[in-house]
């Protein structure tokens, strides 16, 4: 069996899409043109074959050699009613081939619909290879639920011609249901309403034990988003004619502009209640004056214009329900597929008919390809056998100065992972620090769960903030947390191992998260107050030190005033009912009042001809890169 990724391909009538499982979730692969869809169009120009967007761009000038909607002929006999009906809508030639099968004739050459589809599949394969950076040899391809065995065989052959081993042919509605994970919901009956660019399909599925059964299908092979566009274009043309007496349908340039703006307006009306169609200088009047097209199109008007299409689509739905011998109330899940189902009116009508909200989270243009990729993942073992990388359900951190929790590994981080941060001491000559390992989402240490604590001692006595203590959190793939603290000066290290740091019941996790949300504002205020206190203490400490070193350079009066302020700030920071604002204001004022001290310090420094290396380092101790920036650690009183 070949190895490598298996891709999922939605081989559509109008557009195709490719997706693949990546890191456990489906991803739609962009084409080399940078789009997520490949127009299912193949053009022949001499020896050259164009596929997708380039083929579409030259379609009108090369209509007899440009093949589109070939899916309508896949695995069908030329004399089939469906083939005869479809032939009326195409510009290239369809003829009767071997065994009476429908074939495509281009410039005297004969192609089977399989060969044409193979070109689209080959492009899908090439785009996937360029995206993944590896060979792709296997695929899951989707087909409409109503495809018979011959049509499925033809699709499989198309894959083979494109150099793909078709691992499985999956029904489009089944793929859509897979994309919404409906296979995991136990037994249920699902309706899939699929209104794409050119076809409408309704499928009723039943799922039990992961097996999908198609109960019935119906649809309209010639109804799609393009019909909706045409209604808007006709309306714009008639309104313009009413106002200016000029028929723009004969002007190809004006027609193109109207066509583009009609499609844009239709899309905008899926999110807005009304939109402007503005095309200034669209034509010139009989008097040579410029004519401008300007009109407002409301959502209500659009709904009125296409009302019969929407209502009409429920006729096949009713038939499908009747064939499945079901009532709308028997349907448990409804899925919307196809770009046109973005229209709010369609969503509302579907909801009204089935009496339940349809699934619509996945991009309706890509949902089939996504489902195909999921099926491909199951076959390739990517889905069932996937190494399920766990995540840490709650934030892991440690307690720092003032009982604040400092997070190291945020929740939902994929494990295994590790993170280091440098901390420092909070008091002068502090020789040990306590590491309290915390789990939880609350801002204050005490509100979180303590997983364990240990002490790193033997730190050489030094000024507060000087020692560098590197704390490392490391979680292995089994959720075992190793926490180590290392004094970078002495290389002395202490560590603790915590088993099952991720092993919490879902209820516990939810409770902790809910608690954090409930107390978020409270916690934030508490934390800010502690930070303001820490800051005030820092200011007091710094100024006391400076007063000690340079106080003699000041007037006695100035010195007294500064000392007074420092004392007041120190007292304020000790008060239990102090607010963050009061503290911040006092610290600011104290610093401002101590400007003279700063000046004296500067003068003293300048007076020294050349500072010694050690002194220079001391002056710079508050700078340095962010990486090595020391945070003050929890104080342990000796």
């Amino acid at each position, binding site marked *: 069996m070949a190895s490598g990724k298996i891709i999922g391909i939605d081989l559509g009538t109008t557009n195709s899409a490719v997706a693949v499982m990546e890191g456990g979730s489906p991803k739609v692969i962009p084409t080399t043109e940078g789009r997520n869809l490949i127009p299912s169009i193949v053009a022949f120009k001499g020896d050259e074959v164009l596929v997708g967007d380039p083929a579409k*761009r030259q379609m009108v000038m090369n209509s007899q050699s440009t093949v589109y909607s070939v899916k309508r002929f896949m695995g069908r006999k030329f004399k089939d009613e469906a083939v005869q009906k479809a032939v009326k809508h195409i510009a290239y030639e369809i003829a009767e081939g071997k065994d009476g099968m429908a074939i495509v004739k281009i410039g005297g050459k004969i192609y089977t619909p399989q060969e044409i589809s193979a070109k689209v599949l080959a492009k899908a394969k090439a785009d996937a290879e360029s*995206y993944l950076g590896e060979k792709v040899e296997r695929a899951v391809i989707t087909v409409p639920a109503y495809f018979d065995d011959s049509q499925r065989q033809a699709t499989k052959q198309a894959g083979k011609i494109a150099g793909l081993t078709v691992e499985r042919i999956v029904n489009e509605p089944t793929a859509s249901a897979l994309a919404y994970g409906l296979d995991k919901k136990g037994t249920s009956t699902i309706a899939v309403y699929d209104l794409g660019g050119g076809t409408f399909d309704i499928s009723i599925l039943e799922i039990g034990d992961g097996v999908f059964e198609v109960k019935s299908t119906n649809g309209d092979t010639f109804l799609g988003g393009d019909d909706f566009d045409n209604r808007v274009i006709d309306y714009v043309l008639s309104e313009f004619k009413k106002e200016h007496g000029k028929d723009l349908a004969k002007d190809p340039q004006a027609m*193109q502009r109207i066509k583009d703006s009609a499609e844009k307006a239709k899309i905008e009306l899926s999110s807005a209640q009304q939109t402007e169609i503005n095309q200034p200088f669209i034509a010139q009047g009989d008097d040579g004056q410029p004519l401008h097209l300007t009109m407002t199109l409301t959502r209500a008007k659009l709904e009125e214009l296409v009302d019969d299409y929407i209502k009409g689509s429920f006729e096949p739905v009713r038939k499908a329900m009747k064939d499945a011998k079901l009532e709308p109330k028997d349907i448990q899940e409804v899925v919307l597929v196809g770009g046109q189902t973005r229209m709010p009116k369609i969503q509302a009508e579907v909801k009204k008919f089935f009496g339940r909200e349809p699934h619509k989270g996945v991009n309706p243009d890509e949902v089939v390809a996504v489902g195909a990729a999921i099926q491909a993942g199951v076959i390739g073992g990517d889905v069932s056998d996937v190494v399920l990388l766990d995540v840490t359900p709650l934030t892991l951190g440690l307690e720092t100065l003032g009982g604040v929790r400092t997070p190291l590994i945020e929740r939902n981080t994929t494990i295994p992972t590790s993170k280091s941060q440098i901390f420092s001491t909070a008091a002068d000559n502090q020789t040990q620090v306590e590491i309290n390992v915390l789990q939880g989402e609350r801002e204050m240490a005490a509100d979180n769960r303590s997983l364990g604590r240990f002490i790193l001692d033997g730190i050489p006595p030094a000024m507060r903030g000087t020692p560098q203590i590197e704390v490392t959190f490391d979680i292995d793939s089994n959720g075992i947390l190793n926490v180590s603290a290392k004094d970078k000066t002495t290389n002395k290290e202490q560590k603790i191992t915590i088993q099952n740091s991720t092993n919490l019941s879902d209820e516990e996790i939810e409770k902790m998260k809910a608690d954090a949300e409930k107390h978020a504002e409270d916690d934030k205020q508490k934390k800010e107050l502690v930070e303001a206190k820490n800051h005030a203490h820092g200011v007091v400490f710094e100024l006391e030190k400076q007063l000690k070193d340079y106080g003699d350079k000041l007037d006695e009066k100035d010195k007294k005033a500064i000392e007074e302020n420092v004392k007041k700030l120190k007292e304020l920071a000790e008060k239990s009912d102090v607010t963050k604002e009061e503290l911040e204001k006092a610290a600011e004022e104290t610093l401002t009042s101590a400007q003279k001290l700063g000046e004296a310090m500067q003068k003293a420094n300048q007076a020294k001809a050349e500072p010694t290396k050690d002194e220079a380092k001391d002056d710079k101790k508050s700078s340095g890169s962010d990486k090595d920036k020391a945070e003050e650690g929890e104080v342990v009183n000796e």
Partner: protein
Amino acid sequence: MSKKSPKTTLSIESLQQQIAELEQKFTQTQEKEKRALADYQNLVRRNQEERLKLIQMANLDLMLALLQPLGHLERAVEQTKDKGVAMVLEQFKRTLNSFGLEEIEVQDQPFDVETMEAAPGSQGKIVKQVIHKGYRLNGRVIQHAKVILG
């Protein structure tokens, strides 16, 4: 000794089997690890490519949104022959050019599928009318010129 030998053989056999199983498991694990690493490296590469594209195409949406008013302004100049408006148009174009927008010359050129899209009414191979102009942004085609061929 001889009595013990069958038991020893059995034990060796079972150990050999165990080794084989472990070897197989090891190979599988190694394969999985390589695959995960490859996936990761591919992801890193793609991330870099996408970031580069993102930087180059950061103005893409804005440029695309400006193309329609630009076209309308050109039409206004064509129809009104107003010199002042023509100056505004020139200034507008120069500004867009400085951000990497470049008009694709197509008039009287043979059809090129890479830069053009044929509009209904086309018969022939040479561009005789431009319905809307084509543009490149930093070398990449962001709007194909819609043309009628004759």
